[in-house]
């Protein structure tokens, strides 16, 4: 019995070794750098790391949805992105171009897969664990972008797009994107003022429902949506304090009672379900002034709340539509 086991194991290992001999790449090393243009690009990313590229990056991998969006908006089709299915459901403002490979989850992208893609550049955010970034740096130059900063969300968004544009040689496109965003803000602001909503109080939120419990996530003034709201001349009604990166806070239905009469907008996605539709029969919800006055607006699917200029333009359009619709 044991002897048999031993023999089987030996044969198995031998077979595996024989079958696995040889290599998956050509035997001779062919340094590919020779045919690259000489124009080297040197950048300093948001963590202060110097990143040197042989030229504008063409094969780019991105690990977070906001930088994926930035790349797509800049006309660079990424070769690898995290969670293709999720991105497709949550971000329709900048649909994926090309046919990027799925590199796994946003929190734990597969370094194996990234390495196999042999990218010129990996764009990651500061949400990725430093140990993983360190490993990715061995695979390719890594541009680490601040994920979010409650002190200045719009500035962070613009810095990210500028940095990614420099790395991919698409600065003109970036300037265009920023200009479009500003135009969209100005247009939206005017539309709201025309509708008599200048300085109106607004509270943006999303939420989860599980079993019989609802938690509401508040987009405070420190969040990206909150910052855009303020640029549109609206006033943030949340009094809860958000976290220092995303400007988000958690509360429950009770916590909405302090808002007063506001415009309440929320984000949901058919992929996940609508937490607020479950509140229709809740007495607290029904007693809220903004619910009574019909000022609750569900924003359309596919506007990524932590995205780039494209998402925010889509957000402004949908917000103005929702608020001015009679």
């Amino acid at each position, binding site marked *: 019995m*044991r*002897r048999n*086991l*031993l023999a089987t*194991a*030996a044969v198995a290992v031998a077979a*595996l*070794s024989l079958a*696995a*001999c040889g*290599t*998956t*790449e050509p035997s001779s090393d062919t340094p590919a750098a020779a045919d690259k243009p000489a124009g080297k690009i040197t950048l300093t990313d948001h963590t202060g790391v110097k990143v040197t590229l042989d030229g504008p990056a063409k094969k780019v991998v991105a690990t977070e949805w906001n930088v994926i969006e930035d790349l797509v908006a800049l006309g660079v089709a990424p070769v690898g992105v995290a969670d293709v299915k999720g991105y497709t*459901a949550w971000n329709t403002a900048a649909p994926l171009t090309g046919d990027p490979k*799925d590199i*796994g*989850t946003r*929190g*734990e*992208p*597969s*370094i*194996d*897969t990234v*390495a*196999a893609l*042999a990218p010129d550049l990996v764009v990651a955010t500061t*949400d990725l*664990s*430093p*140990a*993983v970034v*360190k*490993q990715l740096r061995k*695979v390719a130059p890594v541009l680490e972008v601040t994920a979010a900063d409650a002190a200045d969300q719009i500035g962070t968004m613009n810095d990210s797009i500028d940095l990614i544009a420099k790395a991919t040689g698409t600065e003109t496109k970036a300037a265009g994107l920023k200009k479009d965003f500003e135009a969209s803000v100005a247009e939206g602001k005017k539309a709201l003022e025309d509708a008599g909503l200048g300085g109106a109080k607004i509270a943006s939120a999303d939420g*989860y*429902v*599980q*079993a*019989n*419990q*609802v*938690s509401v996530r508040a987009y405070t003034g420190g969040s990206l949506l909150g910052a855009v709201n303020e640029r549109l001349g609206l006033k943030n009604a949340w009094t809860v304090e958000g*976290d220092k*990166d995303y400007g988000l806070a*958690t*509360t*429950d239905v*009770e*916590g909405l*009672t*302090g808002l007063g009469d506001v415009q309440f907008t929320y984000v949901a996605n058919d992929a*996940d379900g609508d937490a607020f539709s*479950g*509140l229709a029969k*809740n*007495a*607290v919800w029904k*007693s*809220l002034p903004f619910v009574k006055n019909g000022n609750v607006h569900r924003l359309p699917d596919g506007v990524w709340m932590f995205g780039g200029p494209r998402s925010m333009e889509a957000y402004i359009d949908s917000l103005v539509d929702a608020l001015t619709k009679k």
Partner: protein
Amino acid sequence: MAVIENTAVGRDRTAAATTGAVAVAAALALLVVVLAAVDITQGTADVGAAEVWHALTGTAEAGDASVVVASRLPRMVAAVLVGVALGMSGAALQAVSRNVLASPDTLAVNAGSYLALGVVAATGTTLPLLASSGAAFVGGLAATAVVLGLSGLGKGTVRLVLAGSALALGLNAVTEALLLLFPQQTEGLYRWGQGGVGQNGFDGVAQMAPVIAVAFVGLLLVARRVDALALGDDAARGLGVPVRGTRITTVVLATLLAAAAVTLAGPIGFVGLCAPALVRPLPRRFRGLSRSRVSLPVTGLVGAVLVLGSDVLLRAVVPADLAVEVPTGVVTTVVGGVFLVVMALRTRDTAGADAPDRLRIPGSTAFLTTVVVLGVVLAGVTVGAVLLGDSKLLLGDVVNWAQGHSGRVVTYVLDTRVPRVTAALLAGAGLALSGTLVQAVTRNPLAEPGVLGVSGGAGLGAVLLVTSVQAPGSWAIAAAAFGGAAVASSIVFGLAARGGFGQNRLVLLGVGVSAAAAALISLVIVLSDPFDTTRALTWLSGSTYGRTMPDTVPVALVLAVGVVVAVTRRRELDLVALDEDTPRLLGLGLTRARLGFLVLAVLLGATSVAAAGTIGFVGLVAPHAARALVGRRHVRVVPVALLLGALLVCLADLVGRTVIAPAQLGAGLMTAVIGTPYFFYLLVRTRR
């Protein structure tokens, strides 16, 4: 019993006893009312005591009134219902199993229900509350049946807790895997899985209250038969009580209560264990409480006090906005863990260590063959682990890489893959050796670093560091893990040593400490950074993700020291594992030897956790399987256990990162799935 009650003296006594019991019940009810009153003044809305008073007297503003009616009152009623249900469920389960440690937690009812709800959520079906409660009931009942069936009724307190905890670990691992695989469908289930009593209106309460009421009445109806069971099966049969039928009915009703509680509030930990234990000493003073018909509702009231009290405490200590994020179940679990430790110290532990496994002693050829076979298989798996992954490589690639002239892609892939394989191999071997030492010192074949709280403590220490410091180094993480493990193991082993490492006490202490550590870990994660939990969570699922070579240095060093010590001190280990007297007769400093081996075991456990996260069962399975293969002598057990441990974790890691690539599951989840059935096999085999 019935005879005594019919005499005049009996009636008098019964009357006096009933008065006492009524007084206790009334005092408890009053306490529930006071806590309930405090509870409804707490919350995120600006509705305090004054507004609540106005609302209750009908003079409040509409908004305030609706907060009280639709949010505060349902939450309070849910807390009371859940407490009553869990308390009664625990009391009933303890009565029929004649086991003071039976409860919805230790019988894995909660874990079974949680998994059932996870499966429902993952398949994307949205069920009405009653139907999902049905699913929870089926899951809970199945889990209870497995645990009670395997551990046997009446005997083996420890076996019950071990079987239950092991099944709960395994089931929770599967649920966690579902959460990772179906993140969209199961959104929010993780947080709910910690237990919270908040409610969206009265709907849930209104639907679950009748279920709980039916089970409540049912239990009261069988209460007299349950009392008869306490006299022993034969005596009960003599009184004409259908033993089997009573047991089954009671377990079904108790499971129904627990499932209703899970549906309403998620798994709220340890209430079903603590409430009956608090009531147990009372009948000595209030004799009326010795009858189940009285003690069951009283236990329910104590359960309500525990849940409400935890909720009040949480909202009083933590700011309102954060209190929304912290599930009440975390508080009850921490309280329950401490409680278990106290209980362990108070129970007189008469059960000695298990008799040594009666194993045949294989010859040295068999030992050599085993080592060679395992070595070959391990080599094969290691090679496979290096070659397989998202991009499949061939051996020639590895040869090129080792000689430093592989191409770009292969270099990168192997640079990241090899440290993961190394971490898995070393952590597996480290946990196996740790388990071998612990089992020898405690002379307890079921002891394990995970079950005994060492891994939990290490995890807590490491998570505290990971969440509070930006990018800590590998030595810092290892040190923090060791700090946590040292604290946890000082509690467990320090307190257990007083009773000469009695089995019951050791396991109770361990389960209590690991439960409290797990709850504190969730608390730290929720409070430190509610929107970036990936970092800490990844880590806890026992993952080698993102490991680099330097991360494996601490465990490699400690493992090297451990192997040297285990080999040079192999005779001492044999003696320590043998019995209490032989080492003394031979002039061995037993206490010092034990302490030394334990410190080494804790170091091994902690560095393994630092390298690959909390991986369960390896420390239990590897040494045990080694003993079964090559006998009890440590000179043979140690090398075989090392090989088995490395093999198990390496294989689990390989499966976890290839089967659903490019997404991945932690090795800890895989070992739990493999380890649970093996653990049950051990329990069945050691059944006497």
